[in-house]
């Protein structure tokens, strides 16, 4: 830990310090709004600290402050603020604990973006998971809530263990915990092939564990039950933060740390993508509970995002228009905005002890609460992918990137596979439209049963309005976000595919001695700053 590292981690440190202060203060005062305000202020201070860093930087040690980290931390802070708004009226149980845990998950997500070291990566993932258990427990005090918390807790711990097991194989193969050193070791043509075979095992375990975080099939099945058993803010949190973190770790490990594994990884990602899309969309058709419906929708969208990952892997993270990483990043932002917005509207419409549950309860919302209904329709249509809303450009970017794949790998041309992937993707989008549309139809075409009590408070309402603005603005002017996400692959803290073989030949990487730890290879990673 040098002063530089501390300086670079200042935003995260601020968040954690504020969280600790809130935890402490919560023992003495139960003021609800005060804690949310303090949390929001903490995020603002962290934003100032982040702003002071002026973009991607070169950092040593366990940190990677590349373009992905820079943009990702802003993403985390922005959505963190929305989550604070959304959770500003938590359930009867501890308000201070809620706000504090929320800040910790945000800090964890930022740290995931930063981490360039397996240990730090794992710690960051746990910094998201552990406060999440508390949040889930605080969300609802009833038996159902406890059941869902327990379910999430056990499965999450299991998945963490699986990921960690995968990390251990990776460490065994590469001999380092630094991503850059791993990359160099795996790219080394002189490495024994028997050792390399273990990296396939590592890929399998890490994919398995991380599929839990991104709710991808076959590790998705907890999502509907957990979402149903918890509050709307928690469900929103689960569908955004662990998913973003999971994708970042996948990108860091598969795309950066494990050269030579793309051949297997993109196939696995593509298969999981198809399974997730199809399972999510088809099962969502039968859901009557809004949270279960959105849970399956979240599974389906994980599939679309995995398409982007598969493209990035297959093309070796080639930069340029329509690259896979850009598609993944863009889609994640528009998905997160629309999903969070939908949950925020639902939270706003309920009355704290009694929440909206069934789709039918929204009947006639178009007349009784026209603004809320309009916002909800915008979010659902954006998730459907209707033009001139953010979701359309997400689909445009993802499907376009899949069609854009050209070239071949060891097994022949990849183009037919990705064309098939894109076709399955659009067919899935059509299926997905059915259940989103059903909700819209209920809101606008049915006669109102009873006016929903919009007592969720002003926080969720403003969160919904902010998300609505994001979805509409990205819909009309997707250029800036496209530009930012398009730079991700070029600024990823490693060389891109084009110069990978050259790099391997030019400078033989340091031979990793098995067993040597972090300190043995203090590899310094430098980000390519444009």
């Amino acid at each position: 830990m040098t002063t530089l590292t501390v300086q670079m981690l200042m935003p995260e440190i601020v968040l954690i310090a504020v969280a600790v202060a809130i935890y402490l203060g919560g023992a003495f005062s139960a003021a609800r709004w005060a804690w949310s305000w303090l949390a929001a202020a903490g995020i603002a201070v962290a934003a100032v600290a982040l702003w002071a860093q002026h973009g991607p930087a070169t950092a040593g040690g366990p940190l990677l402050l590349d373009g992905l980290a820079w943009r990702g931390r802003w993403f985390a802070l922005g959505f963190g603020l929305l989550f604070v708004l959304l959770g500003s009226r938590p359930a009867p149980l501890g308000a201070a604990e809620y706000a504090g845990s929320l800040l910790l998950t945000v800090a964890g997500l930022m740290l995931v973006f930063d981490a360039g070291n397996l240990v730090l990566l794992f710690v960051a993932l746990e910094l998201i998971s552990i406060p999440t258990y508390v949040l889930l427990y605080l969300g609802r005090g009833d038996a159902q809530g406890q059941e869902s918390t327990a379910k999430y807790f056990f499965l999450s711990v299991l998945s963490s263990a699986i990921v960690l097991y995968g990390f251990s194989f990776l460490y065994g193969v590469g001999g380092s915990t630094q991503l850059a050193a791993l990359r160099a070791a795996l790219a080394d043509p002189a490495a024994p092939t028997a050792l390399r075979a273990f990296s396939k095992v590592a890929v399998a375990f890490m994919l398995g564990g991380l599929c839990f975080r991104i709710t991808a099939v076959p590790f998705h099945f907890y999502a509907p039950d957990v979402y149903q058993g918890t509050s709307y803010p928690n469900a929103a949190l689960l569908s955004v933060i662990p998913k973003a973190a999971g994708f970042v770790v996948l990108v860091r490990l598969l795309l950066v740390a494990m050269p030579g594994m793309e051949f297997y990884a993109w196939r696995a990602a593509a298969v999981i993508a198809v399974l997730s899309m199809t399972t999510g969309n088809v099962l969502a058709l039968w859901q009557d509970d809004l949270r279960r419906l959105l849970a399956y929708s979240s599974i389906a969208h994980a599939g679309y995002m995995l398409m982007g990952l598969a493209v990035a892997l297959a093309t070796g993270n080639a930069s340029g228009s329509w690259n896979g990483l850009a598609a993944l990043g863009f889609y994640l932002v528009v998905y997160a905005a629309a999903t969070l917005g939908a949950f925020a509207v639902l939270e706003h419409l309920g009355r704290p002890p009694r929440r909206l549950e069934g789709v039918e309860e929204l009947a006639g919302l178009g007349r009784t609460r026209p603004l809320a209904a309009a916002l909800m329709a915008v979010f659902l249509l954006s998730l459907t992918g209707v033009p001139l809303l953010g979701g359309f450009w997400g689909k445009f970017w993802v499907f376009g990137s899949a069609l854009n794949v050209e070239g071949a790998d060891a097994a022949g041309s990849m183009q037919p596979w990705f064309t098939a992937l894109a076709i399955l993707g659009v067919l899935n989008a059509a299926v997905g439209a059915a259940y989103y549309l059903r909700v819209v139809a209920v809101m606008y075409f049915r006669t109102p049963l009873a006016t929903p009590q919009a007592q969720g408070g002003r926080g969720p309402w403003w969160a919904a309005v902010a998300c609505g603005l994001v979805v509409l603005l990205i819909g009309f002017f997707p250029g800036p976000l496209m530009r930012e996400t398009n730079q991700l692959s070029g600024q990823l803290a490693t060389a891109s595919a084009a110069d990978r073989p050259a790099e391997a030949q030019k400078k033989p990487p340091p031979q990793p001695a098995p067993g040597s730890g972090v300190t043995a290879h203090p590899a310094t990673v430098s980000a390519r700053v444009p």
Partner: protein
Amino acid sequence: MATILLIALFLPLAGGLLLGGERSLVRWWALGIALVVFGLTVALVAAYPGGVEPFAGTDLRWFDEARAPVDIRFSVALDGLGLWLFALTSLLMVVAVLVGWEAITEQASLYYRLLLILETGLLGVFVARDIILFYAFFEFTLVPLFFLIGIWGSQERQYAAVKFFLFTLAGSLLTFLGLLAIVLWNYYHPAGQAAGRELTFSIPRLTEALRSRPIDPAVQVWIFLALMAGFAIKVPLFPLHTWLPLAHVEAPAAGSVILAGVLLKVGTYGFARFNLGMLPAATATLMPGLLWLSLAGIVYGALVALAQHDIKRLIAYSSVSHLGFCMLGLFALNRMGIQGSVLQMVNHGLSTGGLFAMVGMIYDRYHTRQIAELAGLAGRLPVLAFFMLVLTLSSIAVPGLNGFAGEFFILLGMFERGWAAAPAAGLQLRIIAVLAVSGVILGAWYMLWLYQRVFFGPLREPAHPSATRPRDLSAREVCCLAPLVILIVWIGIWPRFFLDRMAPTLDALVAPASRAIGDRVAAPAILPSAESRGVGFFQVYPEKPPGPQSRGVVPEPYPP
């Protein structure tokens, strides 16, 4: 002129977003906006110079300028293909606003706002010069129509709205992939490498680039099928038509007018713009199959229309039949066929749009659409009967009215295609051409039978909900129908006015596909020489031999 086009395009959207207030006020605003847009359209049509150059174009960067990863542009212009469909849309929107004048009482402000937003979407489809912009307008039209059908429709409106949306969305998502594939194939085309890759989304530039270096024919077929998925559902082509009767019947009168009058043409427009213009080899390969499907639609739609008990359903099925004719003309792949086809798109919009409006008027008076419950209305409502007669005659293509001009050209084009091909290859085309004529006969049968049952014979009316006797057409309703009738007669007696303006663009559009098929089936023309083909008023242009000099050039002055 570019400014006028932009105002016409976005005035309805602005109105749709900003309007509000009481029904009595908002409907006047909506009418005013629709009329202003129509006036601007008339100005555009009057100033349209003809030729192949785009007219009144605007071309702006849409996305961020510096380092934008893709160059998607806001690019709009009118050309011969879009001109009349644009004009048709702005005219039918006036009709649509007037049709619901009294009938819409619930949430009227929302209704007119959606109608105006829909107008921008539809106008945009016909002027977009960028593939993504086109697709955005194309898909966007679904949203206001979904709400229009679902909120103000009749009994099964919710089911109809959802089915309509899902059916068309499923197809158009595949279309989206097809459009992206065209862009990417052009980008990666080996022949383009030397000249420097260009990732363009511009429709005219793509059309031009693909003319000089076409996509691999085998791939063209796949892209064609992907595009067809969306367009064929919109048209609707025969096996994919099941959403149409439901949506048309359940929609409110204005919704039906717009659906039948304009939205179906979006499909045929897409076929003409993209499949014909960009994928000529696949068009030539798949032509017989498409012609068979069109024929199936013509005959099947007509037969099912014969069996209907509900006036609105009958007219909805007649649309399937008529759009089959449009597709037939389009895929005859010659100049007469495509001109007839585009003319018929406009004709169908006028006659069927008018018929749906009239069904709405009958429904307003009797609250029924069942044929069996109505008879002898000609004596009770003579003015209504008169307008209905004109529209019916237009729909069944009586000479002197517009339907005849369109269907005549289409069939002439189809016959020419059949007899121009070698006997072996041409046999099935000839069979199609001959069988297609049966659609005209069946059309006369079901329409005249409908007219006879409803308007002639002893008077039979259902018990009125109100004690007052149903009145004949009001001034508002006459204003709503009169422009349609004027245009029906105008096109009927002077189609050249309309054909002249679209011909150069259409010739350029059909030329590559026509040449692709000409290469394959080289055969002597069996029809007599070109000069003798002018028929009566119509002065069919002499077909010029395909060659480099004929592409995109205004035809010679017609014989006096």
